[in-house]
């Protein structure tokens, strides 16, 4: 009796299926620009078309520096690999003003940057979801006040639908809350250096890295 394993193969290819020993194949990550971090991320980089959470105590301890090389890659080339225009980068409810000269120094194309400042937290999530699912944004950075399990799932689905990368910045207190994010990273810093902990990584393993940025 012939075995039809095509449906099983299809299931195994699904990035949402976590397999302990063998990291999922074909899930290429976006190089973060920090080799030591890339080695610990499945696919060798930031998980694309998924939600990444970055937990910090304060804004400004290096969370943007961590992302800048990858965002510059997205901004510079068309990672969608067809003739369509390169993706935009949307900033939803940033806590301060992103400073254009510095962004330009990092290699971000300012003409493809959108800053959205909604008035309420609901609108933050709505705007992020719209931007993610539109299919025009390569990355969407958002700073929500609250992000419950259901909202994170919605963002995750919107990122999958729109082939986009969602990055949510959250306080350390969110560490104990459940989340549908593909990757959760905690970033702590003191005068002597920074400490990056991978709390959750779909298809990867938790890790603690010191002074990578």
């Amino acid at each position: 009796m012939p075995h039809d394993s095509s449906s099983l193969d299809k299931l195994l290819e699904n990035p949402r299926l976590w397999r302990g020993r063998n990291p999922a194949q074909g899930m290429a990550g976006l190089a973060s620009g920090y080799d030591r971090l890339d080695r610990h991320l499945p696919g060798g980089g930031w998980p694309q078309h998924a939600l990444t959470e970055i937990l910090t105590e304060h804004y400004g301890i290096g969370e943007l520096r961590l992302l800048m090389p990858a965002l510059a890659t997205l901004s510079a080339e068309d990672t969608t690999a067809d003739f369509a225009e390169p993706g935009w980068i949307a900033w939803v409810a940033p806590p301060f003003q992103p400073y254009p000269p510095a962004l330009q120094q990092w290699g971000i194309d300012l003409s493809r940057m959108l800053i959205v400042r909604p008035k309420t937290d609901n609108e933050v999530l709505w705007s992020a979801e719209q931007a993610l699912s539109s299919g025009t944004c390569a990355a969407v950075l958002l700073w929500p006040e609250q992000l419950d399990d259901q909202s994170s799932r919605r963002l995750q689905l919107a990122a999958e639908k729109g082939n986009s990368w969602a990055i949510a910045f959250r306080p350390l207190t969110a560490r104990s809350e459940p989340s549908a994010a593909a990757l959760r990273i905690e970033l702590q810093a003191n005068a002597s250096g920074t400490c990056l902990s991978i709390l959750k990584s779909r298809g990867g393993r938790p890790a603690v890295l010191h002074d990578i940025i």
Partner: protein
Amino acid sequence: MAQQALALDTPPAAPRSPSTTAAAVRRLWFCAYLPNLSLEASGPSKEARVVVEEQHGIHRVLLTCPKASAAGIQPGQSANAALALLPTLHIEERSTLREQQAVEQLATWLEQFTSVVCIAGRDVLLLEIAGSLRLYGGLPSLRQQVAAGLEQQGFEASLAIAPTPLAATWLARAGRRACVRETANIASVLRGLPLACLDWPASICDSISGMGATSVGDCLRLPREGFARRFGSQRLLELDRALGRLPDPRASWRAPERFCADYEMTEEQSDREALLAICHELLLSLERFLLTRQLGTQRLRFIFFHLRAPATQVFLGGAEFERRAEHWSELLRIRFERVVLPEAVIAVRLQGGRNQAMQAASGRLAFHGRSSGQGRRYSMSQLAERLTARIGNQSVQSVTTVAEHRPQRAWRLQGVLGDTAVTTLSAIRRNLYRPLWMLPEPILLRLEQAYPLHQGRLTLLEGPERLETGWWDDDGIARDYYTAINPRGLRLWVFRNRSRATSWYLHGIFG
């Protein structure tokens, strides 16, 4: 000397007599006469109703609907007599303005069939259709499409086709479903028409019939010169034009370039879904309007009228010129969620903004866009439109750099919608290190033994970088910028004001 009769088959040689060159270019005029316009202009109604007009101080019935005439109400009766016959009768005052709007609306709709649509008089529409016959599948098919469309919009029309506009008009007024294609046949068809269809002043009709002429054919038999002397050369000219002996140029009607349409409700409406459906109707007519002109628009204004409260206005803006009703409807739906209507709505008006020529879009080739099937659902500008529709125009922005050495002036915000300014190439040198986060205003830092504090004592890492002057716009600075780090690991961009040597400020964070 025998006088020439009006309807000679060969053109007379007299100087007043016309030649046949008018028929050199073959034309075919389609006339739609709207006998019940006064009644139909106020929209469809299920109730028995009449339109009244004031004559010598008395309101007299002008037109009746079938239900009213079944109750015995006839044109010419006074309004009171009509009410006595049918107490539930709905009486409307005639409004010539409303009639004019209805005719113009129909003319706009008829523009899809031909580029030459004329409004002749208050209740006659003329279409030149010689060039449209092939496209619309021949005369019977075109006639049927026009008739069906008019009926669907609630207008009863009498249709006639003739090679000259006047002949078509007279035939339609007389209620003849005639179709004359040859100029030579006009005279024989017109012959049997009564004088009333000419729409000449009553005094002239009276004196013509007083001479024993009761039809158009009788008029045509009258001697030309005598006819012109008695009834004016204008009437003779009209007869010649109707027969196609003189050219009858018509100015074709052009709808105003800006769209404006109203929807009046029979009763107050506060249901949002119903209001959105009404707005969609208006948007569909906007789409037709723009499509026939190959135009698109970027801004729309909806005005919701209330009975007592002042009208509510809703503006919609797009990033690109657009005409699709679905597109605007979707934007309106998002925008409408935040609109507070003070009370129920009695009428909606839609006004279009500036128009711009817009070609109908061609479909993209298959290899464009994402091949995976999860293609881009909508473009960046559409995303920006959706965001601004919900959270406001000021909340969605893009940024650009400005060639300027003062940090607070080295960049600016710009709108996303409509603003097409490209990013200014900055003269920033690559080796200058700038923070990713900027504070809106520098914060004065407290001092501890002359050291600046921000969540602990700051340690200066790099600097100073001296940034100075701006005397040309009275916003001069004299600052020494340093990179500093605090005990919690925050890298900060601080400066010392050189005019007041002891004051330190926090200006940015190296995120």
